[in-house]
């Protein structure tokens, strides 16, 4: 069984996010790390590999600057067997349309039975990359997977939706994104960390995957950020100073809005 886990390098979530006013892009020059949601995707792939026939392998796939080697190592220490890294300066400024094109081009070079994504990126908080890549590869796609079991050449999955869970069966090859409730990712062990650099690392350019500069980056993107502004401050809040009647006022407020009867 061949599994690809698509991972993303994101700015360290403990640092404050900043947007460059000139480029209108998120500043990525600080500390970067592996998107925390992707740890669940790797963990789920590792569990599938543990239960699969010998020879099963996990490729960690990413589109990121060449400097992302630490993120690659982290993903491999977490359980990936090899990495496939599309690193090309021309990718800078890619939106979802362009990035999904690049990812699909990398994934199409190999015949993966299953492609796994984390549910979202912790930087742009976008949930749609799995769907976009599945569309490009013409594969079935299930997002927000909260539990899965391999059943021959198909996957039985429980999908988290607002009202509960959907139980679905999807035939392989397929694309899924897993929710962060699906598992508790293990800590990478020291031998795994030390072994990460020795695993095969494939670094590709746009030309290697048959793309031209205009297919990706700003030119290949279909969205353009024209302006950014802070969300408006909320004007409907009421501040109460307690002069002994605050409890009554809060109760009256809640009754008026029919929160309590």
């Amino acid at each position, binding site marked *: 069984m061949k599994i690809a886990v698509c991972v993303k390098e994101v700015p360290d979530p403990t640092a404050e996010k900043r947007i*460059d*006013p*000139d480029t209108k892009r998120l500043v990525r020059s*600080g500390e970067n790390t592996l998107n925390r949601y992707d740890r669940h995707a790797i963990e789920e792939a590792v569990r599938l590999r543990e239960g699969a026939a010998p020879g099963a392998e996990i490729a960690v796939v990413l589109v990121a600057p060449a400097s992302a*080697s*630490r993120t690659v*190592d*982290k993903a491999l*220490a977490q359980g990936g067997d090899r990495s496939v890294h599309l690193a090309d300066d021309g990718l800078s400024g890619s939106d979802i349309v362009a990035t999904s094109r690049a990812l699909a081009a990398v994934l199409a070079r190999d015949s993966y039975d299953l492609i796994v994504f984390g549910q979202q990126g912790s930087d742009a908080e976008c949930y749609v990359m799995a769907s976009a890549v599945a569309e490009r590869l013409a594969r079935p796609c299930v997002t927000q997977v909260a539990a899965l079991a391999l059943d021959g050449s198909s996957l039985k999955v429980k999908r988290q939706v607002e009202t509960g869970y959907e139980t679905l069966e999807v035939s392989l090859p397929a694309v899924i994104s897993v929710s962060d409730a699906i598992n508790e990712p293990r*800590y*990478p*062990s*020291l*031998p*795994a*960390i*030390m072994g*990460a*650099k020795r695993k095969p690392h494939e670094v590709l350019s746009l030309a290697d995957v048959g793309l031209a500069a205009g297919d990706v980056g700003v030119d290949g993107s279909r969205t353009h950020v024209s302006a950014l502004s802070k969300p408006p401050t909320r004007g409907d809040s009421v501040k109460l100073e307690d002069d002994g009647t605050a409890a009554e006022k809060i109760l009256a407020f809640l009754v008026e809005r029919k929160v309590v009867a």
Partner: protein
Amino acid sequence: MSRSSTTTRPINPHDYLEIDTLLDDEERLVRDTVRQWVRDRVLPEIGHWFEEGYLPMELAPELGKLGLLGMHLEGYGCPGASAVAYGLTCLELEAGDSGLRSLVSVQGSLAMFAIHNWGSEEQRQRWLPRMAAGEALGCFGLTEPDAGSDPGAMRTRARRDGDDWVINGTKMWITNGSVADVAVVWAQTDDGIRGFLVEKGAKGFTTPDIKHKISLRASITSELVLEDVRVPADAMFPDVRGLRGPLSCLNEARYGIVWGAVGAGRACYESALEYAKTRIAFGKPIGGTQIQQQKLAEMALEVNRGMLVALQIGRLKDAGTVRPEHVSMGKFGNVRGALEIARSARTVLGGNGITLEYPVIRHMNNLESVYTYEGTHDVHALVIGGAVTGIQAFR
């Protein structure tokens, strides 16, 4: 945007001198992993464990799974990590609690190192893989009630009786003593000081815990009492004689303390920094007052200085050129620095500084032990003094 902002980064209060840039990817990943584990598994509970005087032994197999027990040793299930990676691990563990770091130090640097370095092939095969996995624990018996800084004055004695050895004596202040499956015990013989492996449950071997400690409470400290304990001939380390054996192990363990102390100091500094930024007095954060900023500046300096000292000693160790005198300087300076940070941080936190809701007084109390164990502060001063003058004050 100014040009300079593209070439310099804003000051990071958690890595003021950008020491991270001196670490390689693997070292950072080890550090990040241990830090996260401590955050998840230790910090939520440690105040409670300290108060109860207890450290859950379920942590040992978890540490084994992470590969942190005997991590700097090679073979027998040990990963063979670099000295710097081991140091960073000690730092992060001790940022949790000195008791936790002590557990790992004693297991890896004292018990496992002794067996790895001085044990027979059979002894290594029998103990090291299980100890690396955290399935078996070890302790190290050198210090005695009347022999601390001067271990050559030990009274514990092993005498030959047929093929066996019979050991009598008492060892004191032994971390992990009562939970250890195997004790490395150093004893006088007619042939000088020799090392023995004494297994839990051996007849005449008891390990009463030392109670009423107000330091290193999240750590088990015991006596080892040996009354006519009979061990077979192959329980002895085959080749090492004299103090060289135990002292080589202590040098390993105190290397971990050089780093660990920085972790304890960092935890106190970070706690004080956070508190100073959020505690309001006279209408503004106390961190905006000169007196608290002076303290925070001193703390930040000490954390960074300690880190650089530890890193340099680690690099020397990885290059194979470290000397015990280097390690002595690291322990001497870094533990003192950490203790000063802890005491100063305690005052920043005011009354809250004395509760276990904050890590500061726990580290402060722990560091009093760290100041004394693995070579007292005073003895390390004499080692450094001897090295710079060429005149030994003791020996």
